[in-house]
């Protein structure tokens, strides 16, 4: 780990009128680190993620990203072309519903190739080669490369979305409930795959979820949110095994033990 944080979030606040989305959130994410954000529905975790990823404009605060070329820069002060360029090169965003992140009318290969073409790849054979390579890495059979995602199962769609996002070798991945809506065996396989991809590629990731098992498996560090505020943060094991805040204690104790 280096000294420079990959992403520094400082005092990010987003209000919806009188209602608080998230308030005064600050943290640092270092290269190679996976950060989990947990909390119940409506606790502001998705709002926070969208503010960091540039989908929402926060009312206050700074999101400083360590860009490959210019060093640390506040992404909120960037121009829109710069921010969009960042979001298709150094960043990736995995949506909860694969349909939001995929082009359903375009073949699997085209979906994976889109980011490559967006950054200037113009050689069909190369694009198709890396699309097939990436389908293999997310455990989708090469023979499905020309099929549309509408013919894929939910788990396959989610894996395809991940392939599509990682093909340009991003340094930071935002994930919004990546395992939501999948059955448990598919979830387990997906988590296993994400974990090995994160380790192999040295990715940094921010994972929003309400599922404590997901962060237990994937996250190095954890933030617990309630009503827009961060109530507790720390190493994952520490927070889950020895929760300090009353809300975290409630959250941990409400997991069903099988």
């Amino acid at each position, binding site marked *: 780990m280096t000294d420079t944080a990959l992403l520094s979030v400082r005092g990010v606040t987003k209000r919806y009128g009188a209602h608080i989305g998230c308030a005064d959130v600050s943290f640092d994410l270092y290269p190679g680190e996976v950060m989990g954000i947990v909390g119940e529905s409506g606790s502001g975790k998705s709002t926070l993620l969208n503010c960091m990823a540039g989908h929402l404009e926060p009312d206050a605060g700074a999101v400083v990203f360590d860009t490959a070329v210019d060093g640390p820069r506040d992404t909120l002060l960037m121009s829109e072309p710069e921010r*969009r360029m960042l979001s298709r090169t150094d960043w990736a965003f995995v949506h909860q519903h694969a349909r939001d992140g995929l*082009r359903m009318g375009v073949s699997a290969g*085209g979906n994976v190739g889109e980011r490559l073409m967006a*950054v200037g790849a*113009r*050689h*069909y054979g190369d694009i*198709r080669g890396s699309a097939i390579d990436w389908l293999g890495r997310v455990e989708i059979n090469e023979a499905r490369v*020309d099929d549309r995602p509408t013919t894929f199962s939910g788990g396959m769609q989610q894996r395809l979305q991940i392939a599509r996002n990682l093909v340009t070798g991003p340094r930071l991945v935002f994930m919004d409930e990546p395992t939501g809506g999948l059955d448990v065996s598919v979830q387990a396989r997906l988590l296993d795959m994400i974990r090995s991809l994160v380790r192999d590629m040295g990715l940094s990731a921010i994972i929003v979820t309400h599922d404590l098992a997901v962060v237990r498996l994937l996250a190095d560090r954890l933030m617990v949110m309630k009503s827009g505020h961060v109530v507790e943060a720390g190493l994952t094991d520490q927070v889950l095994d020895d929760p300090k805040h009353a809300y975290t204690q409630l959250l941990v104790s409400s997991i069903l033990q099988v």
Partner: protein
Amino acid sequence: MTDYNFAYLDEQTKRMIRRAILKGLAVPGYQVPFASREMPMPYGWGTGGVQVSAAVMTTDDQFKVIDQGADDTTNAVSIRSFFERTAGVATTTQTAEATVIQTRHRIPERDLTEGQILVYQVPIPEPLRFLEPRESETRKMHSLEEYGLMHVKLYEDISRHGHIATSYAYPVKVEGRYVMDPSPIPKFDNPKLSDCPAIQLFGAGREQRIYALPPYTQVVSLDFEDHPFVASKADHPCGLCGAEDSYLDEVIIDDAGGRMFVCSDTDYCTARQADGFKGKDAA
């Protein structure tokens, strides 16, 4: 003639359209919104082209209308008689004599010259429309030059058919900046868009957009390095005039599978026949 203002539209409307045309010429390939008027013909019959023609037409002009290359199809005949009646301009079927040519889906075979204006009828001006349905998003993509999606379409073509199967309305890049839909001309005509001495104007009536290519504009058809653009045509000579360099229509001539290939550009074909060229199917 006295029943109508010259060329049907009122002068204020023509002025508005001319401003849009000038802006289009200043920013080649950029789609300029304009307040398209109701015209006495249905959408899809060339309402955009007619308005652009009306705005650029003068009493001295020689007007030619082609529809899929032909001067004698319904659409061409009715638009030509519309302007004969409302503007009283001279009309012609000869490409070389015409000063304003309104066209649907073709570029004439004969090389255009300086001083000519080619007016295209455009059904859907947005090249990204079938990939990205949101207008707000396509505008943003144009302004930020995010054209990766256009290649996704070509990628899909190759993955499905083994080659780029898009054969008309083939997307082009204008002066290295805007990606433009050249209207549904066959891709055989795409190379003629580039470095053309004539002014090329595109009018989309229903979609309320005008765009333009000034003379000698560089227009490049999009492709992949390993699947380069090919201006394809039917691999036959014309049955009537024997031309091997012109775009051909396939005509079914009986119900026993008989067919012939003829030039889609009727003026080019008749001129060649008058010069003594004869194809194998000529009477």
